[in-house]
């Protein structure tokens, strides 16, 4: 009887996860959706605690208290600009938990507590490998995003060969452990190999490609949970894990499409390792850039009817989202029509810019996706680029020699005037010069985004 109740409770929690994710299709219903998901999780946890296999509570309590406190502390203290790191860490913990569960299940087989089955053992191995890769890979991604280690790709000779051998070796070892011999020391070697694979998987990937890596690790953490589900023959885990796996895969694809690069290129090409000097291709260097003072920029904005803000990673770095919003408020009060254009890969994770602008109280109907906003640049008086670079480089449209050729971009160069806020003329992540900066209708406002925005706000207030 109790088993039936538990089984139905798991089914209910899987249904609640699906309903919750469905509600994420609109910002109006999303918050409720997240709570429905949390309710599903609570039901699954309570159902598990009713399981008669559970005989002691001490360790559960210790783990649950430590984990919950740490999780809630992270959740409420993290800055919105630090969200990519937070998600990377969460991915890692999910993967780590799955790897630990797999390890314990394996110990039971090795000790002869339970009779091994090939199928279950296979999923244990997959759970360990995927979970281990997710854990260590996410920690590296976190370290890169947090700038504890260099955000540049780390490359060495024969890297791909080493990685391929490591992966094949791990799979061969896993097969040996399943088919031939349940051997605990060898299992520990496999644990080490999985962790090493995760490290090697992420180190060759540059900082600006992190949206792809985080999405992919997100997917892995789901697949690891799935494998745990196969080990425990628990369909709730399989369904939930598959949902997360699918979500991560979709996001990965969206990110790759938005850069016009294949997943293989992102993962293995080491893009961003060699940063070319400002002397980029196309002879653009011969032309000087025209800079503009905050005062003149303020005048330009005052006489505009339509203004589009284009935020990029630079806005996140200088935490300028509140100043952007303040400037937009002043302009709106003067009767200017203000919108925001958000490129899918702007920032360090999918949707990063939207969260920052929402934090600064920008109403979400003003946040426009690339396809919706691109036709509007034609009749826009001023586009203000705040710390974005490659995503507004017109070379992507016409210069077949450019590394970003074919990447969909925001057509800011089509607006009547462009103000680019940038700290220097340094190249963007792709290591190439941006011809937008040399256009006749472009003015450069050099300096830290937050300082420059504050100066603009000051000018507008003084002249009001």
């Amino acid at each position, binding site marked *: 009887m109790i088993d039936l109740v538990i089984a139905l409770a798991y089914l209910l929690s899987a249904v609640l996860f*699906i309903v919750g994710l469905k509600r994420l299709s609109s910002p109006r219903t999303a918050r409720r959706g997240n709570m429905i998901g949390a309710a599903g999780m609570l039901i699954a946890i309570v159902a598990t605690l009713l399981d008669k296999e559970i005989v002691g509570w001490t360790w559960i309590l210790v783990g649950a208290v430590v984990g919950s406190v740490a999780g809630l502390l992270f959740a409420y203290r993290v800055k919105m600009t630090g969200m990519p790191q*937070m998600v990377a860490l969460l991915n890692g913990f999910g993967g*780590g938990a799955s790897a630990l569960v797999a390890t314990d299940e394996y110990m039971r087989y090795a000790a002869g507590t339970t009779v091994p089955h090939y199928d279950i053992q296979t999923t244990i191995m997959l759970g360990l490998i995927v979970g281990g890769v997710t854990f260590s890979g996410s920690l590296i991604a976190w370290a890169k995003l947090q700038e504890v280690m260099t955000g540049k790709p780390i490359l060495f000779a024969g890297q791909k060969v080493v990685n391929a051998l490591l992966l094949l070796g791990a799979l061969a070892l896993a097969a040996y452990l399943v088919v031939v011999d349940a051997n605990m020391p060898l299992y520990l070697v496999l644990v080490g190999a999985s962790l090493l694979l995760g490290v090697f998987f992420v180190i060759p990937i540059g900082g600006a490609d992190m949206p792809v890596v985080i999405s992919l690790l997100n997917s892995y953490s789901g697949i690891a949970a799935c494998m745990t589900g196969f080990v425990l023959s628990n369909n709730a885990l399989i369904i939930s894990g598959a949902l997360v796996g699918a979500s991560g895969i979709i996001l990965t694809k969206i990110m790759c499409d938005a850069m016009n690069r294949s997943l293989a290129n992102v993962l293995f090409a080491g893009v961003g390792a060699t940063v070319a000097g400002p002397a980029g291709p196309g002879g653009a260097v011969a032309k000087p850039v025209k800079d503009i003072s905050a005062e003149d920029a303020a005048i330009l904005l005052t006489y505009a009817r339509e203004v589009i803000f284009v935020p990029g990673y630079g806005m996140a770095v200088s935490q300028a989202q509140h100043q952007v919003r303040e400037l937009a408020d002043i302009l709106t009060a003067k009767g200017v029509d203000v919108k925001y254009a958000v490129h899918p890969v702007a920032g360090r994770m999918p949707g990063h810019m939207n969260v920052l602008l929402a934090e600064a109280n920008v109403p979400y109907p003003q946040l426009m996706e690339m396809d919706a906003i691109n036709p509007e640049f034609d009749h826009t008086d001023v586009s203000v680029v705040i710390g974005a670079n490659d995503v507004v480089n017109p070379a992507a449209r016409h210069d077949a020699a450019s590394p970003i050729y074919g990447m969909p971009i925001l057509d800011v160069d089509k607006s009547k005037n462009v103000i680019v806020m940038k700290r220097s003329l340094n190249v963007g992540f792709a290591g190439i010069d941006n011809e937008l900066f040399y256009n006749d209708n472009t003015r450069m406002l050099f300096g830290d985004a937050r300082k420059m925005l504050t100066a603009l706000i000051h000018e507008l207030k003084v002249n009001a």
Partner: protein
Amino acid sequence: MLAGLMVSIYVFVLAIFVGFEVIAKVPQMLHTPLMSGSNAISGITIVGALLVAGRLESPLSAVLGAVAVAFAMVNVAGGFAVTDRMLQMFKRKPEEAGK
């Protein structure tokens, strides 16, 4: 045994399709909360962690289980809480924004 595994594989494949259908409708604007929220859902591995920590087969197993529970709870508690924190910031009109 094989029949049970086959059922699980059916469930897995169908759930992936459900996932694609549901997630494809999430707008780009909400992709960060989608990641953290789906992340919290992948904390469902807590089910396995609770079993390991609670069946007390050996001291080592219990400790492994406790660590697994802690990891999964970071994921669950942190994931749902941070998602809620983000989602409450998305306001339709400036007036709702308060503060």
